[in-house]
């Protein structure tokens, strides 16, 4: 019952530790990757030309890639649309998850709540198309390793469990927030109730663990790509 929290037991602490480690690892290891990229020399300028000649121009070029997936649009329309749906769906869902950073729901997030269902739908349908493509298109199937399928499945199941929590087996989000904030600040709280919630948090933990050591780092990696971030001189 809210306001009368029970004492955390061993399993709660273990779960909290695991989550906290995953968060610190995700942040720390990603920063490490970025440092390694940044410190690796770029001996010769290799922008793909025509390229902008000013830093502002390069920033614009990168922004087009990061926000509109410009090169992907040139390459393949289906993949581009599916990818946009997935990534923006994910972004909106992640923004919604910011509610767990504080104990009271920030007013700024209210508009996002309206569209959270659509965001989740976009995310999952994008993933479905990408997975179907990976299985059905010969060229793409050829170049895929097990992890390429698993990444998509992992994200999809995380999203689906999230949808289940939203629609079928709602849980007390306050307790969820307490657990997550507690874990990250090392003040262990009881795990929230509900199997689906625990699975969802478990999958999210797995995502955090693999993010820095997998292709998922492309999110930040693209910023270091010399063909895109170097200017023509």
């Amino acid at each position, binding site marked *: 019952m809210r306001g009368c929290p029970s004492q955390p037991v061993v399993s709660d602490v273990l779960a909290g530790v695991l989550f906290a480690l995953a968060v610190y690892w995700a942040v720390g290891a990603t920063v490490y990757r970025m440092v390694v*990229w940044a410190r*690796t020399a770029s001996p010769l300028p290799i922008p793909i030309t025509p390229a902008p*000649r000013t830093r502002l121009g390069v920033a614009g070029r990168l922004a087009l890639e990061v926000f509109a997936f410009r090169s992907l649009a040139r390459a393949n329309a289906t993949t581009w649309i599916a990818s946009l749906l997935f990534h923006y769906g994910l972004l909106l869902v992640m923004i919604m998850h910011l509610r767990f950073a504080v104990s009271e729901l920030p007013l700024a997030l209210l508009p996002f709540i309206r569209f959270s269902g659509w965001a989740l739908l976009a995310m999952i349908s994008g993933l479905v198309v990408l997975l179907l493509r990976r299985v059905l298109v010969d060229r793409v199937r050829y170049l895929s390793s097990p992890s390429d399928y698993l990444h998509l499945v992992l994200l999809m199941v995380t999203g689906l469990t999230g949808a289940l929590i939203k629609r079928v087996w709602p849980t007390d989000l306050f307790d969820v927030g307490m657990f997550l904030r507690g874990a990250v600040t090392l003040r262990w709280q009881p795990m929230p109730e509900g199997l689906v919630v625990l699975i969802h948090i478990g999958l999210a933990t797995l995502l955090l663990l693999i993010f820095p050591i997998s292709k998922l780092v492309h999110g930040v*990696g693209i910023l270091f*790509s010399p063909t895109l971030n170097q200017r023509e001189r």
Partner: protein
Amino acid sequence: MSSSHTAVAEPDVQRHLDLPGTLVEDWHDKAVKRLGELVDSRRGLRVFLDTCTKCGACTDKCHYFLGTADPKNMPVARQDLLRSVYRRYYTLAGRWFPWLVGARNLDKALLQDWYNYFYQCSECRRCTVFCPKGIDTSEVTMAGREILASIGLGQQYSQEIITKVNRIGNNLGMKAPALANVLENLEEDILEDTGVAVKLPLDDPDADMLVVTPSADFFAEPHVDGLIGYAKVLHQASIRWTFSSEASEAANFALFTGQHDHMRDIALRIRTAAVKLNVSRLVIGECGHAWRVAYSFLDPLVGPMKFLESAHPRAQHICELTHELLEAGLITLDASRNAGKVVTYHDSCNVARGAGMGNKEGGQLTIPRELLAASVPVVVEMSNDTTGQRTFCCGGGGGMLTDDLLDVRIKGALPRAQALRAVVQTDQVTHLVAICAICKTQLSAVLPHHDLSDVQVTSLHHLVGDALVLT
């Protein structure tokens, strides 16, 4: 399954370049170590190996894949030949769960694949244009070739050419007296043809401008007609210029093999010659990768070249120069002199995607076209997903222009041939214009295999020279 049977470099050629003569005993460990060293010293390589998400956007963009239908010619698959080894030895996931992430041990079969497929990439960067992360397969290919050469498996064609440049001064092994002879003969030809005494100076110490051109321009067809065009333009503009017998080669094959130190040595010849001849301007002839090196790498490798005049502080392309002269009214072109020709322009990969031209973004695409439009009455464009930044490589670049790769070269030219055929059918195109020595040789050789022998491969400056009002 397509095969690259390009001959492995002979022992004395390798040794000349301070490389092992044959495959070394401990090739596995040496190769893995060298891979690590390259990843540590080239940010592009590291980022490209790390950030690929296997999205497949690149897969149907490579002319060799389109021509051979060999899945390992898909850019991502080509990169994976190296990436799988990088993951195995240098990443957490690859060390602990190789089967999960497609990490592989470097065994003999994979080494063979490296040699096979890194010599089925012309390093044209078309794939990069379509990659959401800007992954440049050519950087992976260059690294792969560098590693192969370092364990004794260089390519005879490229390595031999590099030794010829070092020993004699150009890719063809043409020595100074032979070069002087060729130039004299060309002067006679031009005089006979036009009645004007256009000179082709060699090692003139009073010259203001050094022109460095691919050695094929001195004698090959259709290149030499371009050379004649340069000479006519320079004559008409009353520029004091010269060739150099010591820098008689614009091409820089060490670019193809990823051997940066050799690339620097070859580039240094140009700088040394420019300083020795006391010139204040440097101009590069019609050559694709030479232009990429001159535009993008000369300063980092052997610059800054402070001896160049402030109005032109870096190497210029001959097209840039001619364009400048045309805009300034110092030369006049009369397109009617080329009446009857229907031309289309082939953008060479290194020019389109690896360099700029003039001071405008995209000048490398517009300047040659403006010259062409001024020289020929009818110019047709091929489909725009095959030109400009998306141009299809001729199929013979990046160290592939050797007879033992002819089969792959013919197949690689398929997309370009298809685009050309379309305009031959709709507009009766008679000439294909290019500003790259390799493109000119390659396309002349392979277009007949695609039933396009009626289209003449032509140097841009051939048409300019013919349109030029020469006095």
